[in-house]
């Protein structure tokens, strides 16, 4: 099996560093790619579940643009909806009826939703949700989960990070996942001050195994928040529409007051949504929140088409089936080579870790070996499946995984 060369990627990266901080910034930066020389940085083309880099290397993509790509790159139905609306109007000086249609679609699709609001990025709506909780309750503090990610606004980041002041995070209380006692304690210690609790539907942080809610956890959370008059915000930005089309809370059987959606909503077209219960609609109307591109209607058309396709194809069921099959095969291949592959989280966006080396270096080397052979795996973030991944892709990926295990064996 051919091992990739990245000379053109390197040339582009050097060029990028002259004019762009980090060369490539944020979650696409070289930091999550260990070792960096095993990874491509620049792509020229993508189609289905594959992308091609500037060296012409072809990858089966298991990061799916870190979540947004859910139907496959260049999905004809979604793209057509986008293009058709683009031809009518996109940026405009007044709102499009597509906005109303998309809101209606979401209100029908999502049991908790009585209204919807649109923005561009996940953080636009996690921010908005927190502001609504504060507007609704007149309180300041927000409880969040340690290791939970909600975007890059200063309050969402940790203390000590450049650009973040102590005041920025002063009203955010971080508690461990699945810890009802800690939630109760935080609510008691900050009695009368807590506006809301924000959490993903299950715990999917980076670098550590992902965790489902314990039996009774969400029930307990809802009861405590109700007692203290605090708003429950479900950050479904990453998992949304992968576990359940009505929101991942339906999968785990709880009813948040507000749900944040983004990544998979429009198959990569930039749009995010906050949906909420009727009781919060007035507070939502009072919070001023807007953006230059939040009314672009072509993206709204893409979202409707994408969600319709996910519904038509029963995407969560497909992911569950294909994901489980992939995972079972992978665990077996790892075992054949003497390694233990631990897989946590939902099969559509599972987190993978070779447990034989707690320092993660073995896992990082294995992900690197796979990537250099055409299965794009990062080592510390959950991976993603799309509707474009097929059994044949899974088969090919297993072959790559096996080669990578062989490479590990021969180098240890």
């Amino acid at each position, binding site marked *: 099996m051919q091992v990739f060369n990245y000379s053109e990627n390197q040339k582009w990266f050097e060029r990028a560093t002259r004019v762009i901080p980090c060369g490539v910034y944020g979650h696409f930066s070289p930091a999550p790619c260990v070792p960096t020389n095993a990874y491509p940085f620049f792509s020229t083309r993508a189609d289905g579940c594959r992308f091609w880099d500037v060296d012409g290397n072809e990858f089966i993509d298991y990061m799916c643009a870190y979540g947004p790509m859910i139907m496959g790159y260049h999905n004809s139905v979604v793209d057509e909806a986008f293009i058709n609306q683009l031809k009518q109007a996109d940026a405009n000086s007044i709102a499009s009826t597509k906005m109303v249609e998309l809101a209606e679609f979401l209100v029908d699709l999502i049991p908790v939703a009585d209204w919807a609001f649109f923005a561009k990025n996940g953080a636009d709506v996690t921010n908005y949700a927190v502001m609504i909780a504060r507007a609704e309750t007149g309180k300041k503090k927000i409880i969040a989960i340690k290791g939970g990610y909600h975007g890059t606004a200063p309050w969402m980041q940790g203390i000590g990070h450049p650009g973040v002041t102590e005041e920025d995070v002063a009203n955010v209380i971080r508690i461990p996942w699945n810890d009802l006692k800690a939630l109760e304690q935080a609510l008691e210690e900050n009695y009368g001050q807590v506006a809301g609790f924000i959490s993903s539907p299950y715990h999917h942080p980076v670098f550590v195994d992902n965790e489902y809610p314990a039996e009774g956890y969400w029930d307990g959370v809802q009861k405590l928040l109700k007692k203290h008059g605090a708003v429950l915000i479900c950050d479904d930005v990453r998992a949304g529409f992968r576990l359940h089309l009505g929101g991942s809370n339906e999968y785990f059987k709880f009813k948040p007051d507000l749900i944040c959606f983004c990544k998979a909503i429009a198959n990569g077209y930039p749009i995010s949504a906050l949906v909420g219960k009727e009781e919060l609609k007035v507070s939502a109307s009072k919070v001023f929140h807007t953006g230059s591109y939040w009314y672009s209607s072509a993206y709204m058309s893409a979202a409707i088409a994408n969600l319709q396709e996910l519904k038509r194809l029963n995407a969560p069921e497909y992911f569950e089936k294909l994901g489980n099959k992939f995972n079972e095969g992978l665990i077996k291949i790892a075992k054949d080579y003497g390694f233990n592959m631990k897989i946590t989280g939902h099969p559509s966006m599972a987190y993978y870790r070779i447990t034989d080396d707690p320092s993660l*270096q073995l896992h990082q080397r294995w992900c690197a070996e796979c990537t250099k052979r055409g299965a794009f795996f990062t080592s510390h973030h959950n991976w993603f499946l799309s509707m474009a991944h097929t059994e044949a892709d899974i088969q090919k990926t297993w072959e790559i995984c096996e080669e990578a295990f062989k490479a590990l064996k021969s180098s240890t």
Partner: protein
Amino acid sequence: MGNLSCPLCKTEQGNTQDNIKSSLYLKAVLPSLVDLVQLDKPAKELIIPANEKILFSLRNGEKAFLKIQNGEITYSPKKIETPTIHILLMSPSHAVQVFEQGKLPFLLKGFTRISFLKKKFDALTKRLEYYLKETQNYTEEEKRIYAILQLKTALRSAEVLAEKEEVSKKILAGTPQGILRIGIESINFESYFGFIDGKWKYIDRLSGQTVSSILTLKDLKTTELLLTNKLDTFAGLGLGKIYISGIIPIIDNVGLVLGRIIQYIS
């Protein structure tokens, strides 16, 4: 006494600031004299004939004990022998004035050794300052010494911040426990910072522990840029000037703590 810090040092008002600063001088900068005389010939020559035991003590507070003998220096955070010279620092702010502005300390013991303090020890601290200051036109060998001294001083400083500074404490409280190896590839140098016996510490040499994260700097230039806060580390990673592996949050968070040292000494 020579000015142990660089001219860029900021002295801010406030007890906490001075408290941390005085600890940095006593627990991170003074121990670097041990490395200095090991690495730098002119520094070693300065102390070859000397036989002194210097105790720096902060009233009701920390201590630094330097034993100078046979051209070597050993450091201890405790008084381990009877000193020949005892320097009293009345308060953290007095300590900062002594170390940063060359203000005279109180000499409790060693009046007959004033000439050693004024000449040899002063020259020695000036030599340390030469390396801990911003990069000068160093020779190749001096560049190597600069990188090692800076890196070790930074890691010792991180230990002080881990213990004393609220923000650093919070950063490290949320950091996976483990040991980070920081190395400079071109000169084959390695040093460690990690969680041992319930504390984040600078570790000179490992005694059986395993490393959980690795940060390797390709060469002296990269090290210099990193230490002077002039390196785009993400770009450095992509360009192959920095290599990381293992539990990356340890590298990220120790990096955040290292980045805070400049608020106290630079």
